[in-house]
């Protein structure tokens, strides 16, 4: 979608939402790399299910990437660079540009959620709180993943979560969390800004 200047007679129409190219790049790389992390992660899961061990329930090949444990690991440890470095540069970008103050959940949003009466503003606050809250969840997935990838060098990460099984569970929980987030986030974006807002984030 192009954001050509609105003709004068339509000047009362709401402004077309605009995202920087960097935000769009982040959003795209995040979606694609997360999809690869999740599908290859489920392939790895199948080698020894977190719940039930070898006798546990396995994910069907439709949602796995890699074809076998080694293949799943290869995809996982390739996509991890895109996923983690994408978060890193984007974090630096929103910090340096101070976008985190304007484009992410703030105290004002929390106040709206508590005392606001405008349902549209409230929905917008929920939307902002939701996509802000997913960031620590993504970071947690990286930390728990690093703890399992190099548990000897980063033994303090495993210790932090108490046990190996706890670490595996927390790492795995990021999968359903991210899937549920993606559904609710898409729904909220449509509700708050319609297809114009959704399109602005992609194209």
């Amino acid at each position, binding site marked *: 979608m192009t954001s050509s200047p609105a003709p004068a007679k339509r000047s009362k129409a709401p402004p077309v939402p605009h995202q920087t190219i960097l935000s769009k790049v982040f959003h795209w790389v995040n979606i694609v790399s997360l999809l690869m992390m999740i599908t290859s992660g489920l392939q790895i*899961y199948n080698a020894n299910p977190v719940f039930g061990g070898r006798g546990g329930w396995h994910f069907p*090949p439709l949602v796995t990437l890699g074809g076998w444990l080694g293949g799943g690991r*290869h995809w996982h*440890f*390739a996509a991890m*660079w895109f996923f983690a470095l994408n978060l890193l540069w984007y974090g630096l970008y929103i910090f340096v540009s101070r976008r985190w103050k304007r484009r992410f959940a703030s105290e004002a949003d929390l106040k709206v959620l508590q005392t606001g009466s405008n349902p549209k503003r409230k929905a917008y606050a929920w939307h902002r709180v939701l996509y802000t809250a997913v960031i620590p969840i993504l970071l947690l997935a990286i930390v728990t993943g690093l703890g399992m990838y190099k548990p*000897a060098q980063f*033994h303090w990460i495993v210790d932090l979560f108490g046990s*190996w099984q706890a670490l595996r569970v927390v790492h795995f929980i990021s999968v359903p969390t991210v899937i549920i987030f993606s559904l609710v986030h898409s729904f909220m974006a449509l509700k708050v800004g319609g297809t114009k807002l959704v399109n602005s984030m992609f194209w």
Partner: protein
Amino acid sequence: MESPSVSDRFLSRRRLLQLSGLSSLGLVLGGCASSMYEDIAFKTFEPLNQKVEELLLNPQKLIPNFPVSAIEPNALLINSFQGTPKIDPQAYLLKVNGDVNHSFALSLADLQKMPSTSMVIRHVCVEGWAAIVQWAGVPLRDLIALAKPKEGVKYVYFKSADGYYESWDLASSMHPQTLMVYQKNGLPLVPENGAPLRLASPVKLGYKQSKWVTEITLTNQLYPMKGYWEDQGYEWFGGL
């Protein structure tokens, strides 16, 4: 016997292993289109990942021991690629050779007379499970020192009684907690876990920790046959 070239001894089984490796790999990979580009992902990123793994490994740093009460006796699953070989512990000999100035062979009794190290560490399998285990045995670096390695030695090959083979980088092999063990959880090692002698270390994945080791060969290069599972596609470094 003393120092035949390493390539000869590893080439001798090459044909058989290539055939068995290829056929089983075909079975595993054949079914799924999603695995088609897996090899490209591996070849592109494995050099980078291995560099990072080598940087992360601190060859001097001791990995903290767990208390004995943390041992999980039932968590250590038994994996092997073709059952448990029959070995007579009385007749058993560990050979150490390769690019060294002093090749030698030790019996189990000889090994048990050497200074031993005990550790309670987490054994981590590539499949995702882990177990806290106590191991005791001879530090591999003591055996390497006895062999007086020649200049330029960079790798250590391990040959097992069941045909399993592995290769390690020298830094991980020299780690003070990389042991050739004959004791598990306070008891003599049982055959299923690798008796009479197996590799154990907190800094490598389980498939690197060969059971039933009969021969340790120091080399200055990595041969096309890197390890049983590596030759089927697992990563070689396998560091933790």
